[in-house]
């Protein structure tokens, strides 16, 4: 099977437990002598929304770089639907859609040109890409902006275009690195609802990195990263219950600031 065909045909073996969309096991990483990640373990189920919560410098971006093969981890394994990133990088990458922390659109190109470029990076023909682009643009409410230069779009709309771009090749795993930074309330809400919809409707596994506790919802998984270590990994509802049914955002705020709910 081609790595890229694998993007649409990712049926896990039926007789075993469901393969996680993303599995991170005992991953450690250091830049020269500075330890950035230490023994990080967690997984994202297909169709699950996992919130990677951490303050700036907790190691979230490094973790994303390792998952996307920007560089390799010194130790531990990362697998995407069972494809280990070091052994089968091409099969794994074909299954991932990424929204990066920094904007990565070509400002002088039109929305559509940016999207076709991405489709070509996944080996899609223009013929195959066109209906996908139209479908995703319409879903994100951008159908009438496809010929506009990205430069003419607001920050919120640019982020939507980046989300659309990450979805063109129909990835069953979506990674978003602080996607709402700098966006207004409305754009943030739109992005969150759009991505949650993907989990529910398409069974997309989502890893959403943020330092904003109000982006959590009771049905998501929480992975709290501090100084490169996983401090908490539990369903949000479970954390709320342990803390005596207090407000989720308040519980997470406490965990994030003081290490206790």
């Amino acid at each position, binding site marked *: 099977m*081609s*790595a*890229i065909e694998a993007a649409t045909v990712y049926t896990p073996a039926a007789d075993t437990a469901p393969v996680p969309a993303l599995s991170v096991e005992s991953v450690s990483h250091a*830049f*020269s002598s*500075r330890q*950035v990640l230490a023994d990080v373990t967690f997984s994202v189920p297909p169709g699950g929304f996992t919130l990677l919560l951490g303050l*700036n*410098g*907790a*190691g*979230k*971006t*490094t973790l994303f*770089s390792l998952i*996307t*093969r*920007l*560089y*390799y981890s010194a130790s531990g394994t990362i697998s995407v639907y069972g494809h280990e990133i070091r052994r089968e*990088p*091409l*099969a*794994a*990458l*074909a299954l*991932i859609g*990424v929204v*990066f*922390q*920094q*904007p*990565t*659109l*070509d400002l*002088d*190109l039109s929305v559509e*040109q940016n999207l*076709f*470029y*991405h*489709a*070509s*990076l*996944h*080996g*899609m*023909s223009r013929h195959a890409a066109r209906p996908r682009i139209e479908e995703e643009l319409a879903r994100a409410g951008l159908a009438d902006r496809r010929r506009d230069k990205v430069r003419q779009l607001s920050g919120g709309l640019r982020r939507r275009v980046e989300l659309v771009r990450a979805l063109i090749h129909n990835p069953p795993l979506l990674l978003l690195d602080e996607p709402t930074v700098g966006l207004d309330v409305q754009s943030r809400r739109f992005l969150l609802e759009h991505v949650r919809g993907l989990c529910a409707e398409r069974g997309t596994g989502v890893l959403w990195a943020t330092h904003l506790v109000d982006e959590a919802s009771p049905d998501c998984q929480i992975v709290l990263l501090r100084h490169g270590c996983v401090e908490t990994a539990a369903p949000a509802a479970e954390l709320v219950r342990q803390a005596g049914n207090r407000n989720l955002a308040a519980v997470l705020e406490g965990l994030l600031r003081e290490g206790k709910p």
Partner: protein
Amino acid sequence: MIRLAQYGRCLAGVIRREALRWVHQHGRFVSALVRPLVWLLIFATGFHFVLGVSIIPPYETYIPYEVYIAPGLVAMIQLFNGMTSSLSIVYDREMGSMRLLMVSPFPRGFLLSAKLLAGVAVSIVQVYMFLAIAWFWDIAPPPVGYLAVLPALVISGLMLGALGLVLSSFISQLENFASVMNFVIFPMFFASSALYPLWRVKEASPSVYWISEVNPFTHATELIRFALYGRLNAPSLAIVAAYTALFWIIAIRAYDPGRGLAVRRPVAE
């Protein structure tokens, strides 16, 4: 395995993006064309009466100075192109779109080649535009030269583009491009056969002559100069090919996720 057609689509997509960016960035478009023309107009006119060029291959008659420096200016177009695409990679890396390229599920060596070929394709278009304008300056190589120079441009473009890739992996910040200008572009251009024939340099200073002899830019220039007159300069071809391979190997290593420079350099959190 990824099918061949998919590689083709990916390559076409990368080239299309490079071309679109080039056309849309009007400043880059104009300056790429104006720079060699300014050199031709000001420099060659000024030195026209100072420097005589005796008959040396591939020329068969005495030639005016502007005819002598034209191939060097062609190579300069490619040098600047290689360096600006290296700048654009540094820029891309700061802005994150190099990451976009790198998370594509194609092998990284292929992605870097696609990026390199896209830059070469753009530089060749620039060169032909320059040659078309230079024709009105009486810089008129034989018609066959215009065809013969194409493969020379491909290989010299690859060499200078690969050098740009290597530099891009060493430069961590955009601001350092000024030092690339000072320490790479200017020395490569001046200590070469682009402006003066090497026998003249040898008379003036043996040490500069030796620097010029090992300078890859000299050989790119000579390869282009001979090709423009329908002749093959085999030693230059061999040297340019060797430098291309060398720069390419370094570039691949530098972008290897296992041991590349990115491993040593932390990204901003």
